[in-house]
């Protein structure tokens, strides 16, 4: 019979480290998907996921069991991803003259006929990745959670450990930052 999360956690806390493995197997797809939102290279993603699970193992004593283990783990995952973004913010500056041919074509199509430019196009996804890469760590985190994952401000506050007003302030600044980058694209390309 499959053991529940709380049984596995209790076993780990008693010193049976092997009981942590089923927890990793169960939650690693979700943690990988989360890490892939913030990092691009597969080696970086694997390092982030590894760090998340090692932190979870070492901090397991602080898990009080009031909320599901998954929520606790995802909080840890989001905070670790944020730390990763803060540690890699030097890679943010790339000029928009480096746009690829499909990205430029997608933008051209959007300028001519905004409604026909497909949201499913890989060029649009590449373009948004490029924009996200230029955002500050806090702005990128807020835009990802609020606009892309469509989470509520309260959920974001719980995930990040920030207060609700701070999330609102950061969301406002993040949108402004993103607008500035989008404006820069149009300036660089069409002026």
């Amino acid at each position, binding site marked *: 019979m499959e053991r529940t999360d709380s049984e596995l956690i209790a076993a780990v806390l008693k010193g049976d*480290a*092997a009981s*942590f*493995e089923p927890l*990793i*197997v169960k939650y*690693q*797809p*979700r943690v*990988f*998907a*989360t890490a*892939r*939102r913030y990092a691009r290279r*597969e080696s970086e993603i*694997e390092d982030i*996921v*590894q760090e998340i*699970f*090692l932190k979870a*193992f*070492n901090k397991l004593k602080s898990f009080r069991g009031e909320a599901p283990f998954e929520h606790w783990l995802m909080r840890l995952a989001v905070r670790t991803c944020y730390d990763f973004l803060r540690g890699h913010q030097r890679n943010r500056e790339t000029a928009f003259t480096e746009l690829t041919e499909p990205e430029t074509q997608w933008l051209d199509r*959007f*300028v001519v006929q*905004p409604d026909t*430019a497909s*949201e*499913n*196009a890989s060029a*649009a*996804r590449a*373009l*948004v*990745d490029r*924009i*996200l890469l230029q955002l500050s760590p806090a702005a990128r985190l807020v*835009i990802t959670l609020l*606009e*892309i994952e*469509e989470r509520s401000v309260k959920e974001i506050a719980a995930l990040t450990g920030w207060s609700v007003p701070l999330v609102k302030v950061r969301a406002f600044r993040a949108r402004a930052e*993103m*607008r500035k980058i*989008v*404006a820069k*694209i*149009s300036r660089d390309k*069409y002026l």
Partner: protein
Amino acid sequence: MNLQKLQAKLLAAARKASPSDHVPFAFEKRIMAHLAKPIADVWSLWGRALWRAAAACVFAMALLGGWSFQTSSDESPDLSQDFENTVFAALDDQSEISITEDEAW
């Protein structure tokens, strides 16, 4: 160009592209291998270093003690007297100086 529309379109594109949840083969084994490694405990490392330092100090003390005993036993029979003379040597010198200064007056 309608920037607001462009921004909305790009965010919609990002929403549609949910990231893959693919896990590399046997990734959990990699994490378990890390967990099996002994965790470096700073306090135990510090304690071990202190014990090593203490052993070295005891060895040096024994060596110096042996050496001083050897040399003092050749010249004078009383080590305690030699020790006292060494400690009070500076004071003896100062009192001699003050006596000669008094005499000069």
